[in-house]
């Protein structure tokens, strides 16, 4: 029993090492806010453990994490409805614990993201999952609970829209 707990903890740590960056990146693109993205990432991993406590089985960890993160992001926006996105972007740069390089990276991406904000959030999300998170169509389908076919079509349409935004 104790040994099993220990084993699970180790596996849990391994899972974190493997996916934490990807999930953080995913959240960062969605919320454009370092600290919020960090919190959501941590919450997503805590949800994994809570799910296991309830006796759940996770067959595809990656899809599970993205799905959880997506739900948390939706929750976040519901709560923060009143605040404008611009305000969030402004206080999104939290220099504590970040290297200079990271700050620049995140800032640049944040600015670029402002362009993507013009896209409907669904389109933005799916593009980020495909091209930034480098998820396969199958993984996206798993995370969004949609068929692979539907995901492919949505990516295609989102790309068309994005092109129009970048070429006025």
């Amino acid at each position, binding site marked *: 029993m104790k040994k099993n707990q220990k084993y699970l903890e180790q596996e849990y740590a391994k899972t974190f090492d493997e996916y934490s960056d990807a999930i*953080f990146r995913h959240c960062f*693109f969605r919320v454009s806010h370092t600290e919020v993205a960090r919190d959501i990432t941590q919450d997503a991993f805590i949800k994994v453990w809570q799910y296991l406590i309830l006796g759940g089985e996770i067959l595809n960890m990656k899809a599970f994490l993205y799905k959880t993160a997506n739900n948390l992001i939706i929750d976040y926006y519901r709560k923060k409805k009143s605040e404008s996105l611009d305000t969030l972007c402004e206080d999104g740069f939290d220099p504590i614990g970040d290297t200079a390089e990271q700050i620049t990276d995140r800032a640049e991406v944040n600015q670029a993201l402002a362009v993507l904000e013009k896209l409907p959030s669904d389109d933005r999300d799916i593009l980020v999952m495909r091209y930034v998170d480098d998820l396969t169509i199958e993984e996206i389908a798993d995370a969004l609970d949609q068929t692979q076919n539907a995901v492919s079509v949505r990516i295609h349409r989102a790309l068309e829209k994005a092109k129009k935004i970048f070429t006025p």
Partner: protein
Amino acid sequence: MKNELETLFEKGKNIHLSQKEKSDMKASLISYAQNHPIRSIESALPWYMYFQSHIAVTAFTLLVFMTGGSSVVAEKSFPGDALYGVKTGVNEQVLGLFAVSSQSKAQWQVTLADRRLQEVEHVALNQNNAEETKNALIAQIDQHIKSATEQSEQDTESEASDIQNINDIRPDTATQKKSSEIETVEAPALFMATMAVSSEPTPSSPVRATEIVLDEVDTGEKKIVDAFEKVQSAQEKVRQVIESKESKKVKIQAEIELVKARRTFFELKDRENKQTLVDISKIVDQEIQYLETLSESIIETGDRE
């Protein structure tokens, strides 16, 4: 346009947690996990992490267990086990298909007789009141011996007679004689041991007397075990003699004889509980003598080839 989009995506890929952010987060997650241990661990444990990385291995193992595995496990089953039907009904039927020539058919029958012998010995040792099973197995052994003899005689008319002569060596009434004797012998080993003790000088206390009786029983049992081991080593010797033979025909005939001997000996031995030590040692002596004659006869048969 697309370049801008691509640049954005490329830049996005550089986004990651800093080392400090990562280690802080990990520490708090692990401490959370430690403070919230998983109780129903059995249901959660093997599947979630293991399955995703070893899905092929798991599927393969499952397949092996569901198909070939059961027949491998069945090989070690005995009458009364769930898989015994697979052993006799599937495994042996399939293996039997490989025996084509009458020689290999005879060999296969000997193997079957040998397997039933092992089973009947196992049953006798481990199951109580299994007279029916034992009788059924003995009947099967007889059947296998019969078919083996028939098969081997089909192509070895002349040589068959050589070893068949050995049968005369064995007191053919051994089984019947013994069983009639056994019925008349009433005193079991324990009783004999008690008798032996009572003839000794008066024991100092009743407890001491019991100890002596138990000691005697122990030595009696030990003698029986020793005697059986002797027979086993004699059987082993015959087997070595058979191994050294080059003619396949002689080998098979000799093996049939050995199986017969083992079958008869089992019947004698199986009545061990009802017999005295003297009887058992008689049977054992006779058996060893017979096995020795058998090996000699096998050696001679080989010489004449």
